[in-house]
């Protein structure tokens, strides 16, 4: 093997990693995120100067209305957006890595619809349920949706192909959305549910963030811990087994992390699709194939996307808010179509 075939060079080119780019993304991304958060906090129905924002955070004075607005409304909202973005993006990259499926996304694979269905049940039968239980039900719902999609997708002969997963996701979503709609119409909770479906971080409160944060932090740390194994899984099941990975265990842990992340995010922001689709692709394109780099970078980029979209949602048509889910879909759909057009392997 003295001469290397050109295609092999091509391949090594494709699978190399770029730690330098990754550290740049982490560093620059965090700065951009902080800037985005600052702009997002100061911008809104009442424009507030940056200096006031600074004072509100570090020298909080409860007598000033602007400080109140920032502390009680803007900050939790923006921080919630950042958290949710990280959740969706990491959940998406774990799913794409584990299933080797370029089209994996919590919205496309029925997790969001499942969580929405459970929330519809909660709104209808137990109105006024505490937020903690709502989150738990959203987890359960996400698990239900994912279980149905993956279960049915893998029943088919020939196993799970990306197209089959997307189709099963579309059908399971259609079923669960139909059931939620039926419940909503019967109990007249339609518009509540629609606001939730459209996705929005406007209603986020500190208490929500406090409940959510430990879960999300634990899941993100867990994701970093198994990131090396996910890289191996993304090379293929056989290779991972050959390299001594306990693939069943890793897949189980990965799935639980995905459910926690997606469930928590969906319970805060509603059914936002496509963050988990776009961001991992973008990150992989930028930093290479090592999930130890992809996972933290996509968390940062996901936060940035959601924070900026939320800002956009408030800027497009003030004083009304455009649903953030719709804005992200408008970016995400062309990207999905591009992937669908490009992808031919295994479809």
């Amino acid at each position, binding site marked *: 093997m003295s001469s290397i075939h050109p295609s092999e060079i091509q391949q090594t080119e494709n699978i190399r990693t770029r730690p330098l780019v990754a550290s740049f993304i982490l560093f620059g991304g965090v700065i951009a995120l902080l800037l985005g958060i600052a702009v997002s906090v100061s911008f809104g129905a009442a424009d507030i100067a940056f200096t006031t924002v600074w004072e509100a955070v570090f020298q909080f004075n409860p007598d000033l209305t602007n400080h109140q607005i920032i502390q009680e409304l803007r900050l939790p909202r923006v921080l919630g957006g950042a958290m949710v973005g990280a959740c969706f993006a990491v959940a998406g990259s774990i799913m794409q890595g584990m299933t080797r499926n370029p089209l994996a996304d919590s919205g*496309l694979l029925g997790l969001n619809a499942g969580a929405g269905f459970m929330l519809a049940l909660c709104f209808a039968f137990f109105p006024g349920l505490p937020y903690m239980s709502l989150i738990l039900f959203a987890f359960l719902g996400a698990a239900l949706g994912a279980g149905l999609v993956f279960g*049915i997708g893998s029943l088919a002969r020939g196993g799970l192909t990306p197209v089959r997963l997307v189709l099963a996701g579309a059908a399971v979503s259609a079923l669960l959305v139909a059931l939620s709609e039926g419940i909503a119409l019967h109990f007249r909770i339609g518009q509540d549910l629609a606001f939730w479906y459209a996705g929005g971080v406007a209603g986020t409160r500190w208490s929500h963030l406090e409940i959510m944060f430990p879960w999300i932090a634990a899941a993100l740390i867990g994701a970093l811990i198994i990131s090396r194994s996910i890289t191996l899984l993304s090379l293929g099941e056989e290779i991972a087994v050959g390299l001594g990975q306990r693939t069943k265990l890793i897949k189980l842990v990965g799935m639980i992390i995905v459910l926690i992340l997606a469930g928590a995010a969906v319970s805060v922001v509603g059914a936002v699709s496509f963050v988990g689709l776009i961001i991992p692709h973008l990150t992989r394109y930028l930093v290479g194939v090592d999930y130890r780099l992809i996972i933290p970078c996509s968390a940062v980029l996901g936060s940035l996307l959601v924070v900026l979209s939320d800002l956009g949602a408030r800027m497009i048509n003030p004083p*009304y808010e455009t*649903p953030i*889910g*719709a804005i992200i879909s408008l970016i995400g759909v062309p990207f999905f179509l591009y992937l669908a*057009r490009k992808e031919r392997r295994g*479809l």
Partner: protein
Amino acid sequence: MESSIFAADRRKRKRAYTIMLIIGGLVILSFIISMNTGHIRLSPLDVFKTLFGMGVDNQPLILFEFRLPRIVISILIGSGLAVSGAILQGISRNALADPGILGINAGAGLMVMLFVSFYPVTSNAPIFLLPIMALFGAGFAALLIFMLSYKKNEGISPTRLVLSGIGVAAGISAAMIVLTLRLDPEKYQFVATWMAGSIWGTNWKFVVALLPWIVILLPLVFYKARVLNVLNLGEQTSIGLGTPIKKEQIWLLAAAVGLAGSSVSVSGGIGFVGLIAPHLARRLVGPRHELMLPTSALLGSLLVIAGDTIGRTILQPSEIPVGIVVAVIGAPYFLYLLARSRA
């Protein structure tokens, strides 16, 4: 040898006609059941009497002004959606094609929503414009999807078609969500019910608006059944058999869009009828379109009438839109088909 083939063919046809008769009978049966059920019950005898102008009190009103138009519309949209699905499955050679999944319904829905948000529902809005607007929307969505899934050297690949359809549907529903949230609550309830797929056009005006499309397009498509048979054999074979496939594909696609768009304009987002009915029909009478198309039209009608009747009665006093009932039946069937499909 030859005569036995013909004999087998005759037997098959005979069997298919019997099946069609049976399904037709079931449609009539559910027609009668549907007329009896509802908030105010009418016995079969009452229905019969009222039909011949001997109804008492408000019976004629209930029957002729509320139930009958609704049932007639169910029959029309059921057959329209089913045949539209059959055409789409035929020309794309994709067993999972359906106007709902391919985003054609969503396109029609967007236009209808725009229309409704500009004209109040209660006023005498030009109702005949509704199917035409829906057609524009459906046609636009279909054009977009086909352009996206078309590649110069490969033509239209079935999987790309489905994926583009799902993507386009997601994009359109995002746009619709933005629009719905800006409606006032009363209109919102109306639009939400419409989107869930309910036969809200419960008066004769809608029947009149929808009827011409179905009555003209269905026979034309039945007439083209043999073209669909040939297209089913694959692109190369059809060219070899002398079919101008591009032209026929576009023609049939336009018919499918017309059927789906006009049906959706009245019924709202009913998915899965266009998927299930052709499949069941194929299973019952085989793949030949001259038998399969009428059978799936009948099955589609049956499905929508049954779904509508179930939706009206199962959770009284609220009405569950027929789209939801059909999705609850149809999605599991779709998943079943998916689980059985080969790679």
